[in-house]
Structures are given as C-alpha cells and as structure tokens.
C-alpha cells in the first residue's frame, strides 16, 4: 500500500459526521477545542462589556451611568466570567484541548466522550449563570461572595443561588477537563516520549490540571454549604448557631489561590512554546523550568490565607502564610530568568506572538513585584480592599494570563486555519493593547495607595481621584480597540490570509510536523520522539515518513491509539477510542435540568432528573468498541 492509501483509510476511519449533528456529537479534541474557543470568546465579550460599563461609571466622580445595585451585579459577573468562563476554559478548554494531543503525538484525548461532556457542561453552566442577568437575579456579592453578605438574610432572592449552583456546575466541567488532561499527558504520549522529552507546554498543563483537580473540591464544598445554609436552613456560616463566617473565606481561598496559578501556568506553557519558535533556540534550563511549572502550583496550595491578613488571624498564622507566599517567588523567578536568557542567547524575531510574550514578561514582573509588596503584612492590611489590589491582580491576570492567550491565538492561527495572519495589523494590535492595559491598570496603584476602595459604585469629587480614573477609563477603551483590531485581523486573515503551510515558524513541537489545519486523525504514523523539540529532530521525521510508506505504526484498521507507560513513555498497549456519540450532550442536558430544579426547590423533580442522568449514563456505556472482545 502507498502512503496515500493509508491516509485515505485513516481519513475514513476518523471522519466526523457532517453538519450540525457532527458538531453536537463530536468527540474530536480539535472540534471540542474550537467549540470552547468560540464560546469563551462570546463570554469574554460579555465580561469585557461589563468591565467597560464599570469603567464608564467610574470615569468621573458622582456619576450615575448605573445605580449601586446594578454596579454590584456588574463587578460580580465580570469577575466570575473572566475567571470561570473565560481564562480557565480558554486556556485548558480551547488551547489545551486543541494542542495537547498534537504536542504529545496522540490522536485524541484519553476520554474523548468525557471531553465532549466537559464542553457541554461548561456551555450549560455559562447559560445558567447568564440567565440570572436576564431575569434580574444576577449574583451581586462579588466574585468571592463573602458571607454574611451572601447569606439569605442579607441577600434574599435567587442571585446567590445562581452563583452557588453555577460555580458547582462549572466546576464539574473543569474537573472533567483536568482529569482528562492528566491521564492524556501521562498515558497517551507517543511511544518514546519520556518525561524529559515532553514539551514544557505539557508540563504547564499537567501542573494546571493537578491544581484544578485538587483545588475545585474546596470551592464546591463551600458552595454546597452556602446553598444549604440559604435553602435548607443549615448553619455552616451562622455564628449564632456554632458556624463560622471565616470558614467561607478559608475554603474559598484554599481554592482561590491555587486558582491564580491555574490561570497563569497555562500561559507560561504558551510562552515556553512561542519563545523557542521565534528565537530558534531550546529553552534555557529545561528541567528547572519544567519543575518550576509544577512547583508553582504545588506551593500555591500553601499560601491561601494571605488573602485574609485583614481578618484578625493570629500573628503566627499571618507570618507563616507571608513566608510561604515568599517561596512562590522562587519558581516564578526561575522561569522569568530562563525566558529572558533564551531571548538573549537566541536570535529573537519579534513577530506578533513574541511581542505578546515580551509584554507578558513585563506585566508579570510588574504584577509580581506588587505581589511581593503584600508580604509586608502591615502594608497588605493598609491596602486591602483598595484599588492597589485591583491593579496587582489585573497585571497578573490580564498581563500574565491574557497576553499569552492573545500571543497564542496569533501563533497557532496558521496551524488551526491553514492561513497566515497579517503581521502589521498584528503588531499594531499588540501595541494598542499594551499601551491601553498599562494606562488602564497602572493608575489604579496610585488611587489604591490614596485609599480608593474597590467595589464602591462612585466616589466624591475633591479626593483627587478623578483624573486617574478618567485615564483608566480611556485605557479601557483603548484596550478594547486593540482587542477588536486583533479579532478583525484574525477574521480577515481567515478569509484572505496567504496559505501558511505546515510549519510557518519552524516551530519546535510535533503539531508543526503535520498539515495545517491538521487531519482528523492528527498523525498518519505515530511519531518517533527523541527530544522535547521533536520537529527539529530531522532524522526522526524522516523515519516517520519511511514508516508510513511501509505501514509501520500507522494503526489504520480501527479507531486506534497507543497507550504508553506514564514515566518512560514505552508502548504499553493499543486501545480502541470511542466514535462520535450523542450521550455527552444528553447527559449535560440531564445535569442542567437537575441544576435548574435545584434552583427552583423542586426536590421531587430533582429525583426524576437524577434518574435521567442514570439513563443517560446507561446509554453512554451501552456503546462499546466492537473490536474489544477479550
């Protein structure tokens, strides 16, 4: 048989259904990644619109663009959206889903149907939370939703119930994704890809996935307790009945601080792919960077109470958490130095993706330095709940997490679409966004130090904050223009961009060895891997072509995928992967009904809906791979 015959067979074997049904039933990680991408982009627009209204309201003192109640809803939804419905699903759901299997030489994720389920659950949770806005019951106690403000006594109605149930629902999607990534990275790497040959991008996503898996249960428990307190009458947070309001804060931040690293570590991963491609050099100190990516999440689990220095905790506790927080600086700094040294010792080509990474390093260092300032406990207590904190975490979350997302959009655009983007508008979009974000967030440091509190819907004139706030508002609009330029550039490039070819950047990893866009089976032959920079190992790629011509490791007789040993990457077995399935979307639908009925207190209905979940699972497991007779 010839190469073309093998490829035609694989094409037939892995092809998804056409049309809408094909997308609804798909288990292809690339399609699921794209679904995540478009959905998170819509939610990003919603979160961005909320931010613009907030900034418009604060442009001048004593303004009344929106009232205080609406303002509460806006900043709560903005925070919830950007964290739970934009950055996590954009990095893990979109980038991770699309790229991870390609980088490790796999044909799909370890659990393709679970992958589809995670998307549909994510979509349903987004619709669930945003429904609250349209019925006038949007969450309004801030993204960290402190009790007693969020208790039924002070916040009656369904607003906080939407928050609790929405967070639990969304957490299910993220946990499914995290579990899938961990098993995919540990077990589906191409035979020969031992840990020391795995791209740094995968280390970053492994770290983020472990973080999600172990951090989310704490938030889930917290949300369960609050829902029960509000709707069943339990007393977890009721001090009069033996509960504790600080319990909410502890559980929230046990999730919340690892969450910060969960947001930025995938961005580190994106940076560690873009930098080698545009410097044509392997990343300096590869093992240290890999370990640092894992360590930053691990240490992140031990620092949560630094969000609570103003709550009156014992001094020894405060000092412990301040010291622990200081330790996080070490793995973070290792990475910054490694990136900088790779820049310096390589031949840097400042194309748009690399510009965004350079901007990211600048913003990350700036945000990191203000983060270190919080270790000084009296300083932290002074600026708690002021705009200084807002400035710090926006430098981290927008600068360090979103900049690499934009860089990654440009970097992998040719791979996903098969076309090149236009470079000049790309660079212009970077500079507009860079100037806009600094104008938006830097003055917040100053007004924060001057005592401007967060979450107040307006401020008096005569405090000297007006001009700073006006500058921030102008910055927010400039940033928006930059993002629009970026998106328009990508849309126009999709239709008019020149053909990209398989490898326009001379990238380092396996996704650049295959055509753009990738075929549905990803790799015609399971690739040979000798280093973390597989695309630069020319002899291996030559051997892949030879193996394809001879039909070795093509696995074209079924929906087959090699499974490897978790550490060494030796070939362990070959398994049949599931095909397209209607059950993930049906299961997500049944789960949605459960959450809606919980919100409405229709407890009997919940029991019936749970039975619906069981039925969907029965259908799911009724489909078995035909070739698997033992």
């Amino acid at each position: 048989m010839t190469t073309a015959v093998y490829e035609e067979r694989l094409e037939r074997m892995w092809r998804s259904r056409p049309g809408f049904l094909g997308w609804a039933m798909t288990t292809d990680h690339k399609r699921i990644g794209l679904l995540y991408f478009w959905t998170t982009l819509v939610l990003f627009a919603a979160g961005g619109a909320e931010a613009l209204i907030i900034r418009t309201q604060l442009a001048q003192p004593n303004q009344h663009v929106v009232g205080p109640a609406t303002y509460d809803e806006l900043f709560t939804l903005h925070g919830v959206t950007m964290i739970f419905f934009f950055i996590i699903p954009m990095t893990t759901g979109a980038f991770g889903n699309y790229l991870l299997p390609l980088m490790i030489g796999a044909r799909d994720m370890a659990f393709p149907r679970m992958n589809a389920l995670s998307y549909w659950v994510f979509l349903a949770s987004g619709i669930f939370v945003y429904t609250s806005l349209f019925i006038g019951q949007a969450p309004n106690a801030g993204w960290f939703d402190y009790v007693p403000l969020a208790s039924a006594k002070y916040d009656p109605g369904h607003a906080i119930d939407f928050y609790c149930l929405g967070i639990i629902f969304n957490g299910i999607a993220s946990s499914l994704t995290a579990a899938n990534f961990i098993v995919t990275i540990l077990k589906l790497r191409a035979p020969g890809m031992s840990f020391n040959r795995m791209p740094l991008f995968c280390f970053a996503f492994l770290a983020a996935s472990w973080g999600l898996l172990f951090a989310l249960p704490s938030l889930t428990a917290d949300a369960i307790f609050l829902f029960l307190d509000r709707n069943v009458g339990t007393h977890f947070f009721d001090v009069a009945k033996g509960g504790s309001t600080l319990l909410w804060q502890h559980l929230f931040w046990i999730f919340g601080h690892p969450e910060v690293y969960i947001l930025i570590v995938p961005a580190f991963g994106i940076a560690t792919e873009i930098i080698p491609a545009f410097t044509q050099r392997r990343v300096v100190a590869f093992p240290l960077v890999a370990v640092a990516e894992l360590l930053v999440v691990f240490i992140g689990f031990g620092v949560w109470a630094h969000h609570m220095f103003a709550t009156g905790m014992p001094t020894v506790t405060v000092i412990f958490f301040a010291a622990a927080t200081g330790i996080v600086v070490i793995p973070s700094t290792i990475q910054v130095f490694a990136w900088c040294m790779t820049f310096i010792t390589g031949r840097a080509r400042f194309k748009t993706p690399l510009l965004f990474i350079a901007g990211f390093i600048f913003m990350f260092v700036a945000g990191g330095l203000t983060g270190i300032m919080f270790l000084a406990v009296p300083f932290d207590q002074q600026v708690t709940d002021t705009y200084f904190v807002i400035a710090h975490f926006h430098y981290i979350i927008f600068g360090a997490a979103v900049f690499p997302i934009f860089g990654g959009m440009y970097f992998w655009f040719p791979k996903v679409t098969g076309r090149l983007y236009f470079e000049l508008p790309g660079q212009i979009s970077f500079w507009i966004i860079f100037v806009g974000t600094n104008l938006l967030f830097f003055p917040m440091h100053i007004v924060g130090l001057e005592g401007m509190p967060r979450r107040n819907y307006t401020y008096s004139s005569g405090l000297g904050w007006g001009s700073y706030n006006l500058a921030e508002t102008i910055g927010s609009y400039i940033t928006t223009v930059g993002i629009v330029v970026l998106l328009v550039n990508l849309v126009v490039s999709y239709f008019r961009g020149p053909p990209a070819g398989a490898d326009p950047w001379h990238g380092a990893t396996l996704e650049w060895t295959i055509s753009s866009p990738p075929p549905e089976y990803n790799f015609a032959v399971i690739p040979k891997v000798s280093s973390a920079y597989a695309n630069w190992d020319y002899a291996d790629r030559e051997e892949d072509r030879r193996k394809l011509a001879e039909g070795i490791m093509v696995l074209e007789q079924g929906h087959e995928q090699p499974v490897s040993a978790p550490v060494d990457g030796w070939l362990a077995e070959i398994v049949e992967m599931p095909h397209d399935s209607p059950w993930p979307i049906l299961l997500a639908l049944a789960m949605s009904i459960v959450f809606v009925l919980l919100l409405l207190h229709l407890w009997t209905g919940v029991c019936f809906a749970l039975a619906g979940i069981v039925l969907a699972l029965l259908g799911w497991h009724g489909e078995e791979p035909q070739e698997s007779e033992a």
Partner: protein
Amino acid sequence: MSDYAAGLRRGGPGLALWGMAMLVAAEATLFGTFVGTYYYLRFESVHWPSPGTSEPRVVVPLIMVGILITSSIPMHLAARAVRRGRLWTTRLLLAWALAVQCGYLAWATHDYVQQLHHSAPQDNAYSSIYYVLLGADHAHVAIGVLLVVWLLWKLTRGLTMYRLNATQAIAFYWHAVNALTLIVLGVLLSVRL
C-alpha cells in the same frame, strides 16, 4: 484491530482505572474539605456537639462499617478473576460484594432517617456538618451499589475488554468508598474521645 495491536500485552493499569483514580482523587479531596470543615467548626466552638444534641452511637455503626469493609475482599478477588477470564467466578464474587453493600446501605438509610427524628441538620452547625458528611458518604455507597448492579447486568452478556476494565475500575472505587466510610466514621466518632 491491527495485527500490531493484537500482539501487545497490556503493561500496567488501563485507562479506565486511571480515570477512576482521578475521580477518586477529586472525591477524596471533597471529603477532605468536609473533614477539615468538621474540625474547623469543632475547634472554633466552645461546646461540641452543641448543647442539646446527643453524641453519635458507637458500637452498631462500628460493626456495620466493619461488615461493609469486608466487601473489599470479594471486590478485589473479582478484579483478579476477571483478568483471568473467569466469568462465573467474577459474577459470584460481585454478587457476594453486592449483598454486603446492599445490606449496609439498607441499614445506613434506615439509621439516617431514624437519627433525623431526634435531631436535624437545621439544629446547629454540628448537626449540619454531621448530616452532610454522613449523607455524602451514604450517597457514595449508593452510587457504588448502582455501579455493581450495572456491572453484573453487563456481565450477564459475556466478557469484553470494556467490561474487564469496568470491573477493575469499579473494584477500585469500592476500595476507596470503604476507606472513605471508615475515615468518616472515625471523624464522626472522634467526638466521643
């Protein structure tokens, strides 16, 4: 399946077991949070349990959980038998485990309802965490029972690789549930120390 694939013998646990390990890791963390909450509230309170709330019974729950834990033996043996392709042995061992698990679940449900007649989760923070922790554990036992019933039904139609993987994964789940039940009981009875 490719000739190449057919010639391979599996090395190490299959993907299903890895997936179940991830679920158990997340669930164990959730229970860890519940246990952490229990002790956080305990050490924040002057009285524990809160005044007017009776302490949990010791002997009967210990005996019943002891019996439940013995179900790990047939589950473990079933996972071994299924690897060797012994279908009938697997079915019998699973049925043995299921009998123990159903017996425990019936007692646990009855006991839970009985306790609710004397105190309620709405009484105070102690009762709230007590019933949530115990209820979450019982729910996991119930899910385990459903899984074994499903597995037995699947195995009535023969053995496939899919069902072999399922048996191993469900056996792992049951070991985890038994361990969690023991831990939950230990936590709830620690009030008597």
